[in-house]
């Protein structure tokens, strides 16, 4: 599971003001920092510690993740779509890297 890749499912169209369901999944080992390797050395912690979804620059949902969250974290939530625009999803890793996904949505 070397590769970290986000997956996002957003409908391509919605009515103005409609509440839509959004699903996200990112492949990530979520190494807790509690485990040891075969020679007894601790395996350093490496988890996604923050997830943020925003729409046209406005935050929709954000979550802080802790080491107990299992690998390949999955989020499903609802959002109201007042206008056409773009969803931005960001996952922040312990090493500071940010994985991003974008999805456009039309009205009508």
């Amino acid at each position, binding site marked *: *599971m070397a*590769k970290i*890749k986000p*997956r996002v*499912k957003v409908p391509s169209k919605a009515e103005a003001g409609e509440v839509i369901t959004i*699903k996200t*999944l990112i*492949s990530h080992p979520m190494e807790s920092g509690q485990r040891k390797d075969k020679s007894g050395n601790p395996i350093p912690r490496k988890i996604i510690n923050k997830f943020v979804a925003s729409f046209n620059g406005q935050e929709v949902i954000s979550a802080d993740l802790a080491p107990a969250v*299992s*690998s*390949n974290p*999955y989020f499903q939530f609802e959002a109201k779509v007042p206008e056409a625009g773009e969803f931005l999803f960001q996952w922040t890793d312990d090493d500071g890297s940010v994985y991003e996904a974008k999805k456009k949505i039309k009205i009508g």
Partner: protein
Amino acid sequence: MFKASQKLAIAALALGALVSAPAAWADEEADLIINGEKMDIRVEAPEGHPLDEILSGWIFRTDETQALETDDFDNPSFIFVEQAQEAWSTVEGEAGKSCESCHGDVAESMKGVRAAMPKYNEQAKDLWSLENYINSCRTERMQAKPWKWAKADMDAMVALIGLQSRGMPMSVKVDGPAAEYFKKGEEIYYTRFGQLELSCANCHEDNYGNMIRADHLSQGQINGFPTYRLKNTKLNSIHARFKGCIRDTRAETFSPGSEEFRALELYVAWRGQGLSIETPSVRQ
């Protein structure tokens, strides 16, 4: 979201009563519909089959686990299927070829392949699983290194190829040159292994539907493999599952890819004849 029957089961445990736990955790009547396509998960057994009814392992899982398989986005296996899709078109080895160079679109060329696995290979004069075919392509046509059995790269590719047969019935050939492997597989299936002296049949034929401690026993069908298991959050191959089961009997196990496991795979595949391929499935 407790169901009445679940409450009852928990109440019974609280009283310290020893009950053979009812199958309260799974909706056994539900139909499996993946992306709008209905799967055959209950098949009437043919004459001479050891089971009365052939049942997919999906039936025995909890409502939540069952739900994960009904949508390809929710199904975490697809992380690995996507990786394999990339590997499919990636050139590797001395010959400068990828899988795609010879086989083109995986959705076209690999349709139905998984449903007939494992099968007797006339040229090699041996029973081959999908993994054997993949490695023979890698070493001979691509001149690349073979992949190890039951490891991430291999399991993902098996899942990608298996997905192209989803919804098709399991139909392995057990006559002709395959008959001897079938017989050997059957013998392994009914042999008691390990300190616990358990055969496959003790759990998966005599006791499916019952609880073995906290686990709801299925018939041990392999129509959904490789399967994403929630317990180790990765794809698990057929042979890795065989190994796990035999290890749990406290026995020395055969190795993934061994002749014994390929024979067992053929026999177990035959026990699931007619079930829809569910690859890649989700299990506990």
